[in-house]
């Protein structure tokens, strides 16, 4: 072969892999990695949901025996009685599983990985090998968490926040404080590391690998959302990683970062000196509050895109939306203290945190306002992704407004650590974020797998889930109004909580109803993988780059072509244009008001 006839190597950094292991397991292709993240989240979400159902059983029927479940969980539910240890470990593991391996994994690791490079016209992430390592480190973290169930001493039971010194003292502080808790810390540390590597990749890719014409202000709002989330991950996860290492040192290395002098636990003096209990909370919530936005900002991005697509209208106030995402992310780093009003932190500091917290209401209101503005004068197509996006807006309003209560020092004296908090964060970072994931799933499934999900089943799934989540989480706020503390194995002995039992029953039945409705999703998902209608390149008549290439996209996304971007991301219903949408890659002659 002469040099003259040699083909110019493709712009792609690495060749298509060969062999099952390199193609599907240790793949460096961002699309395969995205799907791996997504499936990890799918497994985790059903595990987490199963745990929540056991929690709900106990709360509605504290005295009932479940002999059949006793056979499945011979230790935790011996003779069918759900033990307090088992209950608290379910509470802890449900929270950890959902926050890390579902709400952080699916929106960013899953959809971000798959869609972001394509939407900016790149062939892959900036660092494909790092990307592969991020996923497998996350997976190792998942294995460590699951292993915590099976070790001597049992799974941890101190809640997903793992407050010191309960979490720092070891087995003397009670059951679940041994090896299971070490594994829990290890799991979170691995997760932090993986997220950090992932964040670097997202940032480098977005900044350096955009196609010609893809200026920052032409990026779809999804890309802005994933980018902002990566910035938050980069700044927040290292702090939790550091905190986790210090906690582990306190437990096994004899240090005293979080344990003060003079403690006596179970009658035994503790040989630790000079630590600070509140330090753990500062480190944890410095991560923990931005984490809320890490979970929900990608959902905001997806919902903005989906609303615009099916409203057949440009996003209302694109620039304001970009600024609002940044404002929410940025302010998110200055409000962690609102988790600590009653922690013993200075009451003056609490006032400052309270005022800062309420200002987050402003960019959140901007988002809501602009979503409604996008619907104004629209021509709405009620597809399943659109239904979930509309549901997201409703849930975001409900879950966001209850934050106005909890952000106030005085009202927090009443609501802190009650079910009002549980209802609030489930509404917003739980189900609103999950609705973002569902909307994204129904929207991008045809791109990822080449087939559409069933619309009829999807719509029924939406209706049942939408009604179900309100039915679950609204009564939780009522429990909080009544002053019901969270993480109680049984509240039936308290006179002031006598109205609680009927509410617990409503919530539990609603939870089982909603969980059952998710089987529709599973059936739809797997049935559509094999039997769904062929999607074609652009089934939704959408405008962004991923819809300009085949479904599923080829290995290097754009083949021999280098995409060139000529238009803004949401050019729908442009007057004078032949169709009601102008794709970003359409020739510049296509009429459009914005370039």
């Amino acid at each position, binding site marked *: 072969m002469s040099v003259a006839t040699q083909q110019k190597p493709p712009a792609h950094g690495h060749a298509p892999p060969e062999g099952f292991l390199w193609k599907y397991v240790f793949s460096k292709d961002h699309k395969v990695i995205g799907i791996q993240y997504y499936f990890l989240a799918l497994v985790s979400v059903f595990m987490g949901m199963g745990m929540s159902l056991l929690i709900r059983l106990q709360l509605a029927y504290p005295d009932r025996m479940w002999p059949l479940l006793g056979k499945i969980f011979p230790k935790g539910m011996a003779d069918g009685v759900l033990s307090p240890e088992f209950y608290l470990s379910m509470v802890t593991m449900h929270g950890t599983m959902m926050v890390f391996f579902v709400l952080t994994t699916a929106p960013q690791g899953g959809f971000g990985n798959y869609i972001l490079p394509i939407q900016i016209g790149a062939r892959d992430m900036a660092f494909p090998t790092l990307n592969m390592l991020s996923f497998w480190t996350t997976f190792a973290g998942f294995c460590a968490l699951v292993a915590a169930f099976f070790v001597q001493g049992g799974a941890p039971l101190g809640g997903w926040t793992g407050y010191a*010194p*309960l979490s720092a*003292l070891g087995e003397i502080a*009670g059951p679940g404080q041994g090896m299971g808790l070490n594994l829990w810390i290890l799991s979170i540390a691995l997760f932090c590391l993986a997220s950090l590597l992932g964040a670097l990749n997202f940032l480098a890719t977005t900044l350096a690998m955009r196609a010609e014409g893809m200026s920052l202000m032409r990026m779809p709002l999804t890309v802005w959302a994933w980018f902002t989330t990566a910035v938050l991950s980069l700044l927040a996860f290292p702090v939790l990683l550091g905190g986790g290492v210090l906690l582990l040192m306190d437990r096994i290395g004899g240090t005293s970062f979080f344990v003060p*002098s*003079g403690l*006596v*636990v179970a*009658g035994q*003096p503790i040989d630790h000196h000079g630590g600070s*209990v*509140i330090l753990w909370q500062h480190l944890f919530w410095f991560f923990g509050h931005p984490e809320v936005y890490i979970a929900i900002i990608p959902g905001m991005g997806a919902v903005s895109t989906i609303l615009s697509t099916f409203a*057949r*209208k440009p996003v*209302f*106030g*694109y620039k*304001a939306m970009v600024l609002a995402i940044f404002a929410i992310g940025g302010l998110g780093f200055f409000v962690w203290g609102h988790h600590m009003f*009653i*922690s*013993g932190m200075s*009451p*003056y500091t609490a*006032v400052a945190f*309270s005022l800062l917290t*309420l200002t987050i209401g*402003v960019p959140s*209101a*901007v988002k*809501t306002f602009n979503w409604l*503005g996008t*619907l104004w*004068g629209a*021509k709405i*197509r*009620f597809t399943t992704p659109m239904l979930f996006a509309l549901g997201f*807006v*409703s849930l975001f309003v409900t879950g966001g407004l209850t934050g*106005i209560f909890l952000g*106030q*020092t*005085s*009202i927090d*004296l009443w609501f*802190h*650590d*009650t079910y009002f908090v549980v209802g609030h964060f489930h509404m917003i970072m739980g189900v609103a974020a999950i609705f973002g994931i569902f909307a994204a799933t129904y929207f991008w499934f045809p791109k990822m797998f080449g087939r559409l999900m069933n619309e009829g089943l999807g719509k029924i799934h939406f209706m049942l889930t*939408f009604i179900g989540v309100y039915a679950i989480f*609204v*009564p939780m706020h*009522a429990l909080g*109004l*009544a*002053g019901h503390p969270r993480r*109680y*194995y049984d509240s039936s002995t308290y006179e*002031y909580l006598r109205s609680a039992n009927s509410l617990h029953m409503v919530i539990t039945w609603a939870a089982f109803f909603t969980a059952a409705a998710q089987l529709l999703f599973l059936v739809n998902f797997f049935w559509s993988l094999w039997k769904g209608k062929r999607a074609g390149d652009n089934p939704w008549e959408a405008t962004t780059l991923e819809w300009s290439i085949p479904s599923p996209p080829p290995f290097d996304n754009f083949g021999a072509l280098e995409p060139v971007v000529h238009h803004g991301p949401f050019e729908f*219903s*442009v*007057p004078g244009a032949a169709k009601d949408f102008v794709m970003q890659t359409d020739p510049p002659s296509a009429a459009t008001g914005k370039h």
Partner: protein
Amino acid sequence: MALLLAAIVWGLALYTGYYLYNDSYWMPTAISDAARQIDSQLVLTMAVTGVAFFAAQFLLGWFILKYRDRGQAKALYQHGDNRIEIGGMIIVTVVFVAVAFAGQKVWAQVHLTTSPPNAVHVEITAEQFVWNVRYPGPDGAFGKTDPKFYEKIGNTVGVDPSDAAGKDDLTVINNLAVPVNTPVELTLRSKDVIHSFFMPNLRIKQDAVPGMAIPLRFTANKVGDYEVVCAELCGLTHYRMFAFLKVLEPADYQAWLQERAAEVTQ
């Protein structure tokens, strides 16, 4: 589809309203001025957020209905409106920050004031899963404590036996008695892990943190027996860690203290 969806959005908004504005689930009786102020701040916030909530859910449902695809050629081609955007932001900022400021007064009353000289001082030392309540006795002064003097029964808070001020200190378990209409200054401590002292009828919750002594003020204005619970997960039987708050007439309060002191010396 549009009508069904709009109906569901509105129906769920009403469902939410039913549970949140239904006072049969609301707080138990308030027994202090501060508690009543916290309640009215809560009601103010309910009103403000209620307007925003119902307005947003109503508009969402209405737009779903109004702007469904009716076969029109194209939707409105519009990229936004900065005047509405900025106007809306200013309104939201003013309202939210005003609400936040309104709530700080009662917070300051609980946390940032100093107790008057006639205040009754009580110290609470939490441990898994007990509240040790110490009264200073007739001399009005607490004896020094040190963990090395802890006993399982008897000297549970570790009062220094050589300190004269501690001789008449009285420690009881899970019972906090206070005189009615008298300022009380509580000091919260913990021996082992974080607990949280939650008195629902006073609307007060405060963590008891190992290594810290955290002050707290209240004045109960209604005689009666009330429940106190633990609000911070502190271990396996966290859910059973509770105490009674007894608000007594001043004479009954003195009698109660003497009865407890007599029990201890027996």
